[in-house]
């Protein structure tokens, strides 16, 4: 019987939520790595028992954990992330030059074909690669050393590579998103990168339509259409139909186009999910009412999905990595909040139920479907 495993990273540890294909009743296991920030837990598509986790603290730095048995046991692997060559500077919060300093791994992207191959998006913004199951890491340095690097600046959460999208048909083609630099793409496995921000507009920049400097919160796409990208930006929900060559706004009738996560339906490439947040300083849902919004037309027209979600006095946020979609039919949609709830929908967002409550602040949510 099909099983579903939801990997939840929180500010004070990791949790694993398990259910059967009905996705009604959830078993909550954890905390893993209690007391550590778990920015992300990721599963290998090539081997569902191979999991990776990024744990860190302000005290003791970065640890990468690996499980070879579906999360029953874990072992620390490599935690040495050394920038290649001279580090140079990026912009600090006050606009002054600041040297690159490794802080933590935000995102782990496991290879679709090789369980030992994994990419890590890190703060300060850079991309690292491991081909030995996380034992050693080497930088994909052409990204950080892009000529625009000195103009990148941290968003409120830091300056990180937080999103890594690998084209399932051609793993040399990748998009990454950086706050606050924007989207960069490569077609040669990371040897060269180009900014892909044409059409973005950010009022906090001296040149609002600059080629870099945009605070892109998340990008997503359906694997069958690698050139159609959806973006939740600091403000604005955007869409590209040419692999990031140009972007157009599809915020449409959303109550707010500020937010963090964005996700695409497993079987309907034009069905997209966002969680509107009131504003860049008011990080809670409009009217204190938590609702996911779904577009079935690739943007512009959006419908609220709130059946089963808090309708009053709700002032949580949903962070960029904290939404995931399974590939069952109908697909399941999951998201976690800064208030420690994880909500699950087994019917593509029509109805919601609480899968876990009272967890620490949720930083990330991933989901696996298991045979």
């Amino acid at each position, binding site marked *: 019987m099909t099983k579903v495993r939801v990997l939840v990273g929180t500010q004070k540890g990791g949790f694993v939520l398990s259910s059967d294909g009905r996705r009604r009743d959830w078993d909550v296991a954890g905390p893993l790595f209690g007391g550590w920030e778990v920015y992300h837990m990721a599963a290998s598509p090539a081997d569902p028992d191979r999991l990776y986790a990024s744990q860190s603290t302000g*005290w*003791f730095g970065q640890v990468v954990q690996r499980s070879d048995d579906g999360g029953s046991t874990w072992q*620390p692997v490599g935690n040495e992330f050394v920038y290649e060559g001279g580090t140079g500077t990026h912009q600090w919060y006050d606009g002054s030059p600041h040297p690159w300093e490794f802080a933590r791994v935000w995102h782990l992207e496991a290879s679709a074909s090789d369980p030992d191959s994994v990419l890590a998006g890190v703060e300060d913004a850079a991309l690292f690669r491991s081909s030995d199951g996380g034992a050693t890491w080497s930088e994909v340095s052409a990204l950080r050393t892009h000529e625009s690097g000195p103009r990148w600046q941290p968003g409120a959460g830091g300056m990180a590579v937080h999103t890594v999208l690998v084209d399932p048909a051609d793993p040399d083609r990748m998009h990454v998103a950086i706050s606050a630099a924007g989207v960069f793409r490569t077609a040669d496995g990371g040897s060269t990168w180009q900014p892909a921000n044409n059409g973005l507009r950010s009022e906090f920049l001296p040149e609002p339509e600059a080629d870099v400097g945009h605070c892109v919160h998340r990008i997503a796409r359906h694997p069958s259409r690698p050139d159609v990208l959806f973006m939740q930006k600091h403000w604005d929900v955007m869409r590209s139909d040419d692999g990031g060559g140009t972007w157009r706004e599809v915020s449409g009738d959303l109550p707010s186009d500020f937010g963090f996560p964005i996700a695409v339906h497993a079987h309907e490439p034009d069905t997209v999910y966002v969680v509107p947040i009131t504003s860049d300083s008011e990080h809670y849902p409009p009217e204190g009412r938590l609702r996911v919004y779904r577009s079935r037309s690739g943007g512009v027209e959006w419908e609220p999905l709130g059946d089963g979600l808090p309708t009053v006095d709700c002032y949580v946020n949903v962070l960029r990595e904290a939404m995931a979609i399974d590939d069952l039919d109908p697909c399941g949609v999951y998201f976690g909040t800064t208030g420690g709830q994880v909500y699950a929908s087994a019917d593509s967002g029509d109805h919601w139920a609480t899968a876990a409550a009272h967890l620490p602040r949720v930083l990330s949510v991933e989901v696996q479907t298991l045979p």
Partner: protein
Amino acid sequence: MIRVVLPHHLRVLAGVGKEVLLCVDGQPTQRLLLDELERAYPTLRGTLRDPSTHRRRAFVRFFACEEDLSNQPPDEPLPEAVAAGREPLHVVGAIAGG
């Protein structure tokens, strides 16, 4: 043997109890002791000091004999009571680190 008291999270990570015993060849210094700690417990590499520069992490402190040794030069000899095993070196997470 030199006694090192580790904080909770590092005990869990290394799979050890509160205190570990280490042997350092020659005159024990902070650097040599941490080298030996990381050799004996490789999972601690990078958690106390930067793996490349060996600079102490900002929120990690070293106390012994009721003194803060955190900012002592790493090649300076450890207190005689620590070197002789009468007093432990305490590895402490600073109050601001969490």
